[in-house]
């Protein structure tokens, strides 16, 4: 019987000292305030500093609860599936490639308010009720390793057409449109730029040795010459802000974004239809466009603010150049054709 008591003892010890149960929400309950709580449903990339969350709680009197999981696509589909009984009051993170689906399904409730200057420039076309409020934006652009091109004595590519030029054979790596959101953004770039001829462009791109990976991390960290994994390809699909992260410490940056190849991704926040706390939800949506959140966006979520005159971090101000005229595709058209485009894209790229 000695052995058995040893087992039981071990079990008891293990569960008592380090279980999750019973250690959960004491703190949250202790800080609960008079106004009740606002539940924010979002994707896994959502990060806001504690100070900013505390500022919201102080200004509004509500307690903020964040529930984050999955990517933007997962988030949208979760909202659609739970629209009869939403898991929160506010959703943040639906982007302009998924927004139409959420609107069609009636996931959000309209909330028109006086947003700071600049915000309305990113409003979703066709969103007449103002169900979605823009919070941030980022451009998906082709990035190049300038030091590599300098060392090789070749001029870096500039345009989409350059990428199919034999000079740049086997140099481009990008994530798949089927499994990654920047990948899809680049597919939309080519659809905007080439119209119905986009499949031919992709055929040329693949013939020129473009390498597809499953996600952004595999492409940038694994195959890009300036990524962590020290890959072999000096051209990669990434963001307009990425050059701010390859600063060389000598007053320059080793990469740059090709501003003629960009597609703007906008992320929205909205009040969920059927929210338990619509009042608090509206306060949070308004707070998201306010100065505290807007200023924290670059450092926390690697995206640009939408409100005018928001100060940018130093490296961003110097090295993250935004395109003036990015490519655009109507969100309603994206919603209608996403499936067909992806099927055709898959056929072209897998040959």
């Amino acid at each position: 019987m000695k052995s058995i008591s040893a087992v039981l003892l071990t079990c008891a010890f293990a569960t008592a000292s380090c279980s999750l149960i019973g250690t959960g929400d004491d703190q949250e309950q202790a800080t609960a305030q008079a106004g009740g709580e606002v539940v924010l449903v979002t994707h896994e990339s959502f990060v806001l500093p504690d100070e900013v969350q505390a500022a919201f709680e102080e200004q509004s009197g509500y307690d903020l609860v964040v529930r984050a999981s999955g990517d933007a696509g997962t988030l949208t589909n979760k909202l659609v599936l739970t629209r009869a009984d939403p898991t929160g009051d506010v959703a943040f993170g639906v982007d302009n490639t998924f927004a139409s689906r959420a609107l069609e399904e009636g996931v959000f409730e309209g909330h028109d308010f006086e947003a700071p200057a600049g915000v309305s420039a990113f409003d979703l076309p066709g969103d007449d009720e103002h169900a979605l409020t823009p919070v941030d934006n980022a451009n998906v652009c082709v990035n190049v390793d300038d030091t590599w091109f300098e060392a090789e004595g070749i001029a870096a590519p500039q345009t989409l057409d350059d990428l199919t030029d034999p000079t740049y054979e086997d140099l481009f790596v990008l994530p798949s449109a089927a499994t990654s959101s920047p990948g899809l953004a680049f597919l939309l770039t080519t659809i905007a730029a080439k119209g119905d001829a986009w499949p031919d462009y992709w055929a040329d791109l693949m013939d020129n040795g473009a390498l597809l990976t499953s996600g952004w991390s595999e492409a940038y960290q694994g195959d890009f010459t300036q990524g962590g994994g020290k890959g072999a390809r000096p051209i990669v699909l990434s963001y307009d802000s990425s050059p701010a992260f390859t600063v060389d410490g000598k007053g320059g940056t080793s990469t740059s974004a090709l501003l003629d190849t960009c597609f703007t991704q906008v992320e929205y926040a909205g009040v969920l239809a059927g929210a338990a706390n619509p009042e608090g939800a509206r306060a949070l949506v308004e707070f998201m466009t306010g100065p505290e959140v807007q200023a924290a966006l670059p450092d926390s979520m690697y995206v640009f603010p939408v409100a005018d005159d928001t100060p940018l971090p130093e490296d961003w101000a110097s090295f993250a150049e935004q395109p003036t005229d990015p490519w655009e595709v109507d969100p309603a058209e994206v919603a209608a054709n996403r499936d067909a485009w992806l099927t055709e894209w898959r056929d072209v790229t897998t040959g």
Partner: protein
Amino acid sequence: MNTWRRPLTLVGLALVPVVVLGVFFVLPVTGMVARGFWPDGDFAPGGVIDVLSRPRTGRVVWFTVWSAGLATLLAVAVGLPAAYVLHRLDFPLRRAIRAALLVPFVLPTVVVGVAFRQLLGEAGPLGFLGLDGTPVAIVAGLVFFNAAVVIRAVGASWESLDARPAEAAAALGASPRQVFLTVTLPSLRPAIISAASVVFLFCATSFGVVLTLGGTRYSSIETEIYLLTTDLLDLPGAAALSIVQLTAVVALLAIAGRLRASADPSVVRVPARPRRPRRSDLGQVVATGLLLAFVAAPLLTLLVGSLQVGDSWSLGNYRALTTTGSQQALLVPVTDALVTSLRTAVDATWISLSLGLLVALAVSRRSRSRAERRIRAVLDGFFMLPLGVSAATLGFGFLITLDSPPLDLRDSPLLVPLAQALVALPLVVRTLVPVLDGIDDRQRQAAASLGAGPLRAVMTVDLPLLWKPLVAASGFAFAASLGEFGATAFLARDDHPTLPVVIFRLIGHPGAMNYGMALAASVVLAVTTAAVMAAVERLRVPSLGAI
């Protein structure tokens, strides 16, 4: 009275696990599949049938079957010699090696993927082989992740194998090869089939490996379901593939169940003591060494990468783990995430061990009637099903079915460990059942006739023999929980992310520091796992095996 007691015991033992699995698995999955058949509230199976007749579906199913099948064969082939060497031979560091072999099991695929591709990719030392993005790379990745399952499950069984039949055969003049083929292999067969069926399920439902190592040219059923559910919201399509996946899993389990039936469970066990390696073990030792090299190569790449900042050696990446990232990319320091991971793993382990033990006891009792045997076989298979269902289906299913009282559990902190426990449950059951099957029922009868109650009989007959497999199973459950990403990413609450979720976030941002921290955090996860495994293996009871 006596005729009723056996079925009642069976029901009593199985009740809790069946209810848990019913609520947290059957209900959500049925909910999602039903949405596919009733897309707008009306029964419209056309969409489902349509997907089944697409040529692409056929290609996806075929790729899944052959890649998983091949990977399983290879994992068994490389795992068997290693199981022998690591569990039957005595040499320095064998416990450490055994613990280290579980490391791949817990590492996030995206990190291992990057490490693998540093070796196989265009710029890597093995780049000349041109394997990057090929099915060969996918199969190699699957073997890398799953060889440990074979080694551990078969090794545990091998360790507690009665040594005397093999010794008798050898004394009668059988060559080592003959002994292995005619005595050892047949006794190991239940364990091998068990391990192989689990490995096959893991391979067939593996998500990250296919995507990361196969580029985007290959789709398995799992990646296809994920894409259809999370990207296209094509629920009829996802339902169709889920049904294909479930049918295939059930068929596989039925076949495995037949093959597994042990020839002669009535053996008295005198476990062999591990012995020093002899010259005749050379082949197995070399094979194990090669396997270790294969497993170690990507891990070493990780380790080296984690120790570099810029072009020089540094511990900077590790020091950074107590911060929230080079910008503020993380809400909590990596060290906090590690604590969350460990706590979650403790919960997942005790849940899956207690459920698994009940299930194993229920299904492994000798049946007195055909009906009883059938019920036990169905139960046995039932608990393997969670391995055969996509995390996306389960995750969305939680949302749409567990949303109203008394099952309003969508935001319960227990959901993550429970989901992980369900993933680990088949591993636990498959590790315990072969051993329980091998216990001579006459021992329990003897105990009973000497006046022991059922509980006392379990304690004195089953538990001493179960100790080692229980240790092995708890290791599995712990490791599976530490490394679980699919379901966790779906459910993780943001204020308490687990370590794999944090690593995924770090490697998903540009900046050398974030990449370095992701590698360092992976190394920490690996070392923690190995340390916990090594500690678990030390929990031994001296009176073991003295029957």
